[in-house]
């Protein structure tokens, strides 16, 4: 077998090999069961509880969970705005990088607290190390928030009839200390030993073979990269993200990073199975996600490894596949695999330039973000999927002649209202954002010429991609877009903000409301949700609700581009 393909297989198998036991471990952590690490972490957690003055055993209802989450995020928002706008005089700034403008700081702050990590700047020139450490902290925090909310939903799904559903701080602190921190530490050490810098010193100066003097940026990169992948954050230390040789130096570091992208999103499915004691349901959900994932992955790999049609037409063979915008040390296969991983999981780190993907691969990358729940971001991916489950349960429940119920709880008008609002939010944000920018550009192309380096279909794709990435809290970009201007900073900021918190509030509210409802025992007439048929139903709902509503937009961007070069 082709080594590139073999590499992809190995990476995926390794994910599964780690994710299943990890999922069980996470389940134990949230269920407060004994784990091997208790002796180490109990005292650490206690410090945090004491510092924060919280009682981790006080049970909260869904509103209290949300209130805690939102309050915490607001505080960090203010803190981050302050740091980013005052970096120039704050400590740890050896390269004397300037402070950010208000609109860029707004965009960056939201970007990091919302787990998007869209970067309208380059870390080398726009960030001090203090700024980098601040946003690195948010990579932990935003991931921990998402995981805490997923934990809440798991317990809400499990409980029969109650509004006492665990403690937010308990879930959050444990997510950070017992899951993210140790895993990040392992990766950071591996990275540091494989050539990723970990230092607080400023730029280094080297002399190249030609005798030129080159200034090389460095910093606490290894730690930054570890959490960036683990928490599906994706915010790069350097501008080119994991395509940068110091951020992802070798095929080996690339393997670790790729595994880390998918690790926790996959593990959390099995965590759900463990907490609910419904392993079959976990496998059905995994199956649906995997099917969607493969449907995006396989054509992307084929497209990238086959090379660019336009170049083929010139009579140039491409034995390595489409290498424009890709790193030779990774190759087109592993890069294509990364593309689908990073977009399906709302990670958004890149090891190749998505702008240079063949048009259809670009579309599959966008589709991964448009669906945003094929594994999805840590915690939030499952929350998005939960909405699709609710919609599928509603329709298929009717189809078996009962008013719909999910895990013993009736789904009624109130839950449907919330589910529909969340389901239509994503198309609303993406399409409206793209519509506004298209309108502005179409009616005054000269004034906005700086936005698009490629007009035409590709330019449209760049704009569509930017909003899709923002709304999916993904953070990757089509590089050709000139996005560090107030219009993009602010509009993407708003999109990220809405697309982060509403899709958390919605599922948490539904799960909380359902948990408090009367429990209906299962009977032979009850729709079983842990069957392949139901999985198929969820998949169909995802395709029709999430994917098809973008069909006209995709037709004008990547599809038109694809057919026009064929």
């Amino acid at each position, binding site marked *: 077998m082709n080594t590139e393909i073999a590499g992809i297989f190995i990476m995926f198998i390794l994910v599964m090999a780690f994710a299943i036991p990890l999922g069980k471990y996470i389940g134990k952590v949230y269920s407060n069961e004994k784990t091997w690490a208790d002796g180490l972490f109990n005292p650490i957690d206690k410090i945090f509880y004491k510092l924060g003055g919280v009682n981790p055993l006080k049970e909260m209802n869904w509103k209290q969970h949300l209130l805690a989450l939102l309050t915490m995020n607001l505080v960090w928002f203010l803190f981050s705005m302050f740091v980013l706008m005052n970096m120039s005089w704050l400590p740890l700034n050896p390269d004397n990088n300037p402070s950010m403008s208000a609109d860029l700081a707004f965009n960056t702050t939201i970007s990091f607290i919302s787990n998007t990590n869209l970067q309208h700047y380059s870390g080398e020139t726009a960030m001090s190390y203090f700024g980098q450490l601040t946003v690195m902290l948010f990579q932990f925090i935003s991931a921990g928030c998402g995981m805490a909310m997923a934990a809440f939903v798991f317990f809400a799904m499990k409980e029969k009839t109650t509004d006492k559903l665990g403690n937010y701080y308990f879930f959050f602190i444990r997510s950070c200390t017992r899951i993210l921190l140790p895993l990040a530490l392992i990766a950071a050490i591996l990275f540091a030993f494989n050539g990723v810098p970990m230092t607080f010193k400023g730029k280094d100066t080297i002399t190249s073979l030609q005798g030129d003097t080159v200034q090389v940026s460095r910093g606490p990169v290894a730690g930054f990269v570890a959490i960036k992948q683990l928490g599906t954050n994706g915010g790069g230390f350097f501008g080119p993200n994991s395509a940068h040789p110091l951020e992802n130096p070798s095929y080996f570091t690339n393997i670790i990073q790729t595994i880390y992208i998918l690790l926790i999103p996959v593990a959390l499915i099995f965590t759900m199975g463990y907490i609910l004691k419904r392993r079959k349901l976990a496998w059905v959900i995994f199956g649906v996600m995997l099917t969607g994932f493969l449907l995006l992955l396989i054509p992307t790999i084929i497209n990238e490894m086959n090379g660019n049609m336009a170049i083929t037409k010139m009579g140039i063979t491409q034995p390595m596949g489409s290498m424009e915008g890709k790193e030779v040390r990774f190759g087109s296969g592993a890069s294509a695999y990364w593309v689908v991983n990073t977009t399906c999981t709302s990670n958004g780190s890149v090891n190749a330039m998505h702008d240079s993907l063949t048009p259809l691969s670009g579309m599959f990358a966008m589709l991964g973000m448009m669906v945003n729940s094929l594994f999805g971001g840590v915690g939030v991916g499952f929350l998005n999927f939960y909405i699709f489950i609710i919609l599928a349960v509603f329709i298929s429940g009717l*189809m078996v002649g009962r008013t719909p119920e999910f895990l013993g709880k009736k789904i009624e008008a109130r839950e449907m209202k919330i589910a529909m609002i969340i389901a239509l939010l994503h198309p609303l944000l993406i399409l*409206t954002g793209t519509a506004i920018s298209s309108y502005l550009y179409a009616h005054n192309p000269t004034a906005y010429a700086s936005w698009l380096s490629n007009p035409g279909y590709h330019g*449209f794709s760049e704009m569509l991609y930017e909003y899709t990435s923002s709304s999916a809290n993904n953070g990757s970009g089509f590089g050709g877009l000139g996005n560090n201007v107030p219009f993009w900073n602010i509009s993407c900021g708003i999109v990220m903000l809405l697309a982060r918190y509403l899709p958390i509030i919605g599922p948490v509210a539904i799960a909380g409301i359902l948990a408090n409802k009367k429990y209906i025992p299962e009977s032979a007439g009850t*729709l079983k949700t842990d069957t392949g048929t139901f999985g198929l139903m969820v998949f169909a709902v995802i395709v029709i*609700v999430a994917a098809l509503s973008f069909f006209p937009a995709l037709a004008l961007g990547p599809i*038109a581009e694809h057919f026009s070069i064929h």
Partner: protein
Amino acid sequence: MKQRTSNKLFQSELVKEALKDSFTKLNPAKMFRNPVMFTVWIGTLVMIGVCIWIAAGEQSQGNLTYNIIVTAVLFVTLLFANFAEAIAEARGKAQANSLRKTREETPAKLLQQVGEVFMNEIKIIPSSYLKKGDVFICEAGDIIPSDGEIIEGLATIDESAITGESAPVIREAGGDKSSVTGGTKVLSDKIKVKVTTEQGESFLDKMIALVEGASRQKTPNEIALTILLAGFTLVFIIVTVTLKPFGDYAQTPITIAAFISLFVCLIPTTIGGLLSAIGIAGMDRALRANVITKSGKAVETAGDIDVLLLDKTGTITIGNRKATNFYPAHGVNEAHFIKSVVLSSLADETPEGKSIIELAAIDINNFKLNRPKFIKFTAETRSSGIDVDNTRIRKGAADAIRQLCEKNGNAFPDETGKIVKGISSNGGTPLVVSENEKVIGVIELQDIIKPGIQERFQRLRKMGIKTVMVTGDNPLTAKYIAEKAGVDDFIAEAKPEDKMNYIRKEQKEGRLVAMMGDGTNDAPALAQADVGVAMNSGTQAAKEAGNMVDLDNDPTKLIEVVEIGKQLLMTRGTLTTFSIANDVAKYFAIVPALFITSIPALQALNIMKLHSPQSAILSAVIFNAIIIPLLIPLALKGVAYKPIGASALLRRNLFIYGVGGVIVPFIGIKLIDVLVALFI
């Protein structure tokens, strides 16, 4: 009624009425209730504006004929949706009216009333003048003018006008069978009846109002589904509206007709147009099964029922017990025993008593009795019998006879005790017979389980419904019959409050319970149950307490009601799936058509190879319109329910309506396009 009901879906007079209604329903105030169709209504108005605009000389919107056709198709879509609702209403109304007609304008013999006292004078008035609380008299041959409750007398009544059942029934004052229905005919005797409902407020009137829409409320599930559909509609509003700037960017002018067509095709008009028809048809189907529902919600709830409480007698077993065996005691001559048994049953009017004589098969006319004294059954002695020629014969429950014998110093034979136990454990009822306070034998009474009832329970079990038998029998007998009939649970020696407690217990565990009842003492349980079906022959209290009334007084009707409820929900679910699955093909019809002139490369998406952009758009909207009337029969009849388990059912419906919903429009649109292409 069954005989009068035509099963044709579209009777011509109903169609005419429905066609007329389709237009009156265009009233925006009415359209507003249905958000999906309301957006089509707005779209149609916009298109009319566009047509006028073009007529006034606008060039950019395509030619006038094409725009007029699009407008017309949209308008027809609206009419089709309205027609679906109207025909469902018309059918329900026709059904209810034919019931009501029987009772209109029959003369009523009103008892004159002075103050609180009823005089013995009779005044003949038309039935429509009767008021609640009036008392009228009916004699043999009279048609009962109004629903009411017998306050005096007993009569045999022919209820075939309502139930279709030709055997007359007995109704009498005071008991659980005191209720009479207007339109039925008194065959014998004379009764005084008190009117219990105001004119226009009978259950039938309420049902007609429900069907007509004036008082029809959306059921909770209908509301939730409407939210889902409204949500989809909003998504497609976003998709369509944002397409305008996208088109601007791609320098592709898109006509208003194309925008509105795309929008109307994508929104779930099929289910949106049929939704209320499905709900009405559910109530109508119940009415066809001779069940009057007091709300649409009751039908919907019936589909969710987890537990069915069924009375043993009449539902599981045929009427009454029958004597099946005689066991003379040791040393007692069988002929003598049989004779004694027959003697003791001579005056026994109960069906059990009669069956004893039947089984004995001896000619009772040969009996010469000297001054026989018949002893009636009382609750105290719990036995009955006869005193004749110094012989005292008694028959009764084992322990009653045991008491009687032992009180008089005679032992109760062990062997008899064994027989009694044996009969009980086989589901029979033992009757012990004594002569002069000595046991002479045992009669075995057996319940006859209705043929086919096991299969029905099997079917219910597959639906996931637990059946519970309610009986006054002792636990041993109850258990035997429960096992034999295949019910899941039973309540033995049931008192009315036991039913109530059982319902509460199940409900507390989250299950929905249905029951049927007729007596006043059933009323609290009927009210407590999620679906309470009262028999029409039952007391007024029972009928008020339940949420359905069964005109046939058929205890197995609950099973049908459950199936009707399930059908209703399934029809909604499958048509929603179908409607949404249709979008795939419509996207592939319209999206390439929108951009084909400016982006010829997108021709590759025209996988149906439709003739031209205009024909593609027209075919899609025409398909979208005609699928509604094509599915009206399905909406009215309901999707067939098969008790094959939830997962299998989902697989089946997903395949038919989901996969079918993806494929059918590809074929349909292509065919229409071939036809349309002939004219363009």
